């Protein structure tokens, strides 16, 4: 089946998806309770969309299409409050964070849906190890070529989003020394990483995708786990590198940072993207995962090394006018606070661990953070 036509959408509109953890209140391990929670949520209108995810201990929520920070944040907070209330009713806690610090992947149950069962059959234990939680941000594009231009132009900014959102330092009960251990799980999938370099949708859809489809490896765009992928049915590009932050406030800020950055890139004031940009892509990505904001990244154009923190702060200065135009200065301020002062949520979680000495307390802190905000 050929790739569907890229649906046009309003440029720079945005939508946020968050994968969230369901946690039991007893020992704060993951709880296979998605069915029960979704059943209860069905009874009343939900302020957004809520769907099951791969395993029974996770759910995914999505906002409507949004244009500005205020309404996006308001909807995310409404969704959060609805979820927390429903969770309270069923004795389930809900938390952000890219990984659950001590869940045992082999205990997770694959959600009983044909697609998930099929993926589990194909990927074996990788499917269960995929019990990780990410934030996806969609940015609307007026046409398919604009989507590919944005997708590839963003390559040099990918470390920013990894470092800012990183909230998965612990995995299987230990500190991984990575700020984002989650992305290592994603990287295990054969169709993960970066999209092939082409700025022409015609070439992408009719040459690359057709060839891939003929190999029998992929059937739709869903089979690609790329860091950024085009979503023709929505008319968007989807950034998938972020860990789910601990708060919806941080999630909204990250989306608006991306929105402002895209507005800046669409001005075409930066040199156009090219294949060689990807020479340093995997290295930069690793630095962001491993060291977070303290990682060093190489600018693919100038080949200069700069700390991710400095690069974010410099970018914020550059895109401030776009933040003004988009009414998202509050969001950009939070990004600046995160990069410049308070640090990402991985740092927060490590501090919790240092103070309490227990991974359970780390989960408790995540649960509280989602409830009470920053």
């Amino acid at each position, binding site marked *: 089946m050929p790739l569907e036509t890229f649906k046009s959408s309003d440029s720079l509109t945005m939508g946020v998806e968050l994968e969230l953890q369901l946690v*039991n*209140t*007893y*020992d*704060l*391990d993951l*709880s*296979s*309770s998605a*069915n*029960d929670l979704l*059943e*209860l949520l069905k009874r009343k209108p939900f302020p957004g969309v809520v769907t099951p995810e791969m395993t*029974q201990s996770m759910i995914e929520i999505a906002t409507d299409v949004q244009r500005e920070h205020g309404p996006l944040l308001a909807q995310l907070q409404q969704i959060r409050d609805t979820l927390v209330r*429903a969770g*309270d*009713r*069923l*004795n389930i806690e809900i938390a952000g964070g890219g990984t659950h610090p*001590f869940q*045992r992947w*082999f*205990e997770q*149950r*694959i959600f*009983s849906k044909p697609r998930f*069962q099929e993926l*589990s059959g194909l990927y074996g234990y990788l499917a269960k190890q995929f019990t990780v939680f990410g934030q996806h941000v969609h940015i609307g594009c007026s046409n398919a070529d604009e989507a590919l231009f944005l997708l590839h132009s963003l390559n040099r900014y990918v470390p920013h989003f990894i470092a800012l959102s990183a909230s998965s330092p612990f995995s299987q009960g230990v500190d991984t020394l990575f700020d984002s251990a989650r992305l290592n799980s994603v990287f295990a999938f054969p169709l993960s990483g970066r999209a092939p370099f082409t700025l022409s949708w015609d070439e992408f859809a009719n040459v690359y995708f057709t060839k891939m489809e003929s190999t029998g490896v992929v059937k739709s765009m869903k089979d690609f786990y790329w860091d950024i992928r085009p979503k023709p049915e929505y008319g968007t590009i989807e950034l998938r590198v972020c860990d789910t932050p601990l708060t919806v406030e941080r999630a909204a800020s990250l989306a608006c940072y991306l929105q402002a950055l895209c507005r800046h890139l669409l001005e075409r004031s930066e040199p156009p993207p090219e294949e060689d940009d990807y020479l340093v892509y995997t290295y930069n990505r690793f630095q962001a995962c491993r060291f977070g904001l303290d990682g060093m990244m190489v600018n693919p154009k100038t080949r200069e090394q700069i700390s991710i923190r400095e690069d974010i702060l410099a970018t914020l200065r550059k895109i401030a006018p776009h933040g003004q135009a988009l009414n998202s200065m509050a969001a950009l301020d939070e990004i600046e606070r995160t990069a410049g002062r308070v640090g990402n949520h991985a740092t927060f979680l490590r501090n919790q661990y240092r103070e309490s*000495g*227990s991974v*359970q*307390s780390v989960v*408790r802190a995540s649960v509280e953070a989602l409830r009470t905000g920053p």
Partner: protein
Amino acid sequence: MVTDFAFLLQSIAWPLVLLLAWLLAELLFERWRIPRVTSYVAVGLVGGLINLPGLTTDVPGLPFLANVALSLVLFELGYRINLRWFRHNPWMLALGVVESFVTFGVIYWVSGWFDLPVDHRLIIAALSISASPAGVVRVANELRSAGQVTERVMHLCAINCILSVVALKLVVGYWYLSTSGDLVMAAFGSMYVVATSVAVGALMGVAVPWLLRQRSTHERGVTVVFALAVLLLTTAAYGLKLSPLLAALFFGIVARERRVHLTNAQRDFGTAGDLLSVFLFVYIASLLNWADVGAGMLMGLLLIAVRTASKVGCNLVAARLSGITERKGLLTGLALTPMSAFAILLLEQTRLYGFAPAVAVLSAMAGMMLVQELLGPVVTQRALMTAHETHVTKE
């Protein structure tokens, strides 16, 4: 050269039976997914039936050991109780309390159809409120079950147990009053025991987490300290003639509120917990007298039907109100079927404290207990499996 085979058999009877029970349980679980506790009970019953020397004769200390084993389970159950849930979902608490009253009422009423004295009927009704924490917790942990039926069964089981103990203590008080006319003795037998047991358990629930916080104890260490504290609590409860079961349950509930976490791997108190659990179920089963089983079987079956109907009915009515489907409500009610281990120990302990009718009641309830012990865990297991709260994919 060993010549005194009778003596040898008597000495090795318990370990031999326990080993046999364990092997059988593993085999049957693997082959037909029969809950392990059911096999333990079956072996205990057969041991009792063939009157194995050394097993059925009184061995000092066994009731105490059984109480320790059950107290560990009750502590774990208490630790799973989230008091805040009752605030967020008051239907849960209401359901637990109303269902307990309804069960007490219908069992008291139906037992009137048989030739039983009033105080026996009251005791049977009080015991029927309870659901067996050992059966429920063991089966749920064995399946690593998680979901609303599991959560609710745990919480309702705790409420049932508390109310069952309170009801039994009130009945004991009433009995003292009616036989001796001694109001002080009656009050001592009921409210004092309940209140002091709760207080001692709660005190431990505050003290132990405080102690653990004074120095950073690793996760296995936390489990060991809790287990030793349960042991201490059970001993103290015996010494003070309190209810070790109620004390252990409140120890768990309060310790949970004070937030020191047990790890996932330490459910059932690890290997030591497994060992005590084998013993507990074999021992409980060996207490039943086969001669009583046949006589009380008809009444037993009827009471089981009425008790199940009461638990299922109440859970069905409250399902939607409390946030789940009727299907899950029905399964929750069914999963509360096991009752014997807790009830038998409660009765046994009341007997030790000088409550004469306990012996007669145990014999009247023998048929009911036998069926509940053997089939209760199976019903719980099947209910949890039907609720899809166990593994969907095979490991």
